[in-house]
């Protein structure tokens, strides 16, 4: 069911929209230990509760963010695609995923190593601040989307 991660990636973080405008050397440092991921439709990238040790940059395909509750079918609450990023549970303890991520179709990602990221963001606060400034709007947008979903605006 799972895809695979492999070293020596051909994808480059600097080519991803998230890192547009960043210092090239900083992005290069963050990419240490990055793994390229290939997934087919149905493959799990990670499961809720597992260690959140990667920050995924999506280059191709589509990924479903899924939530499960006891006695209820698993629901997709959002899909993301090329240019999007996946996951920030690696940024703060307890470093555990809070949802499942599954490929909806053939998908390629670059998965940055969380420990490397945390260490580099700590070591370079200026770059780290820029990183968080880039990540915060993504978090805010997804929070707003969740709020609108709670309103169930299309309900009768």
């Amino acid at each position, binding site marked *: 069911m799972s895809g695979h991660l492999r070293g020596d990636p051909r994808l480059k973080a600097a080519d991803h929209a998230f890192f547009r405008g960043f210092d090239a050397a900083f992005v290069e440092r963050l990419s240490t230990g990055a793994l390229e991921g290939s997934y087919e439709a149905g493959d799990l990238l990670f499961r809720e509760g597992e260690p959140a040790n990667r920050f995924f940059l999506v280059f191709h395909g589509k990924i479903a963010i899924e939530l499960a509750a006891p006695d209820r079918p698993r629901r*997709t609450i959002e*899909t993301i695609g090329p240019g999007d990023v996946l996951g920030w549970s690696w940024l703060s303890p307890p470093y555990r995923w809070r949802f499942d991520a*599954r490929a909806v179709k053939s998908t390629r990602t670059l998965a940055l190593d969380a420990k490397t990221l945390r260490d580099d963001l700590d070591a370079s606060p200026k770059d780290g601040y820029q990183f968080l400034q880039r990540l915060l709007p993504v978090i805010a947008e997804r929070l707003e989307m969740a709020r609108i979903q709670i309103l169930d605006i299309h309900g009768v």
Partner: protein
Amino acid sequence: MVLRPTFGHVPPFSPGQFNMLYRFGLGEVAISICGDPSRPDEIVHTVRSAGKITSALVRVAPGETVGVRGPYGTGWPLHPMEGKDVVLVAGGLGLPPLRPLLYELLAHRDRFGRLEVIYGARSPKDLVYYDEIQRWRVRSDLRFQVTVDTAGRDWYGDVGLVTARIPDARFEPERTVAYLCGPEIMMKLTAQALEERGVADDAIYLSIERNMKCAVGLCGHCQYGPEFVCRDGPVFSYRDVKPRMALREV
């Protein structure tokens, strides 16, 4: 629901207009016309059971009779889209009022630039015109995106709000006209997202929904600020209603 007159002829309508449908003994309700304007022989409505009258309307069987008054309302302005990129954004049952406009656009496709349709619904089972959407999605002269609020694993399409599709939509903002129909909060957020892309607020049109009774601007049930939705709308320029959309009291 496809209606044909028991006498006389069907009056022509403009995309975006509505009829008052009367279920005898129960009352009237305003329903948008969702058929093809080039088919003047029939009146087409899409009705979702949501109250006493609409639940009676969805139970109407072939051969039965319903009362029709109309068409009423302003309709979507067609002249601003000549030569422009056109974006239609629909949420839920906001697609039916936009369907006649889409028919019109496709019938005169060479007169417009890019055509982008973004349609959002609560879940895959709530999508209307599913088969027709599949035909639209394979057209090369139209990009039709579908997204739902939530879905199971049997859905391979997008999940998320229509607003999330705006940044990647294919249009040139300075030469784009947008038409929005759906829940008011969805239209507000979509209009904001379009403005962020650079679309002018007077190039965005939306269809406002209020409780309509007389349909001719007399009873005041559908008052919307200084205007009546039935007479002065339901289609308004976003520039004109933007201040009102921020007020809870309107």
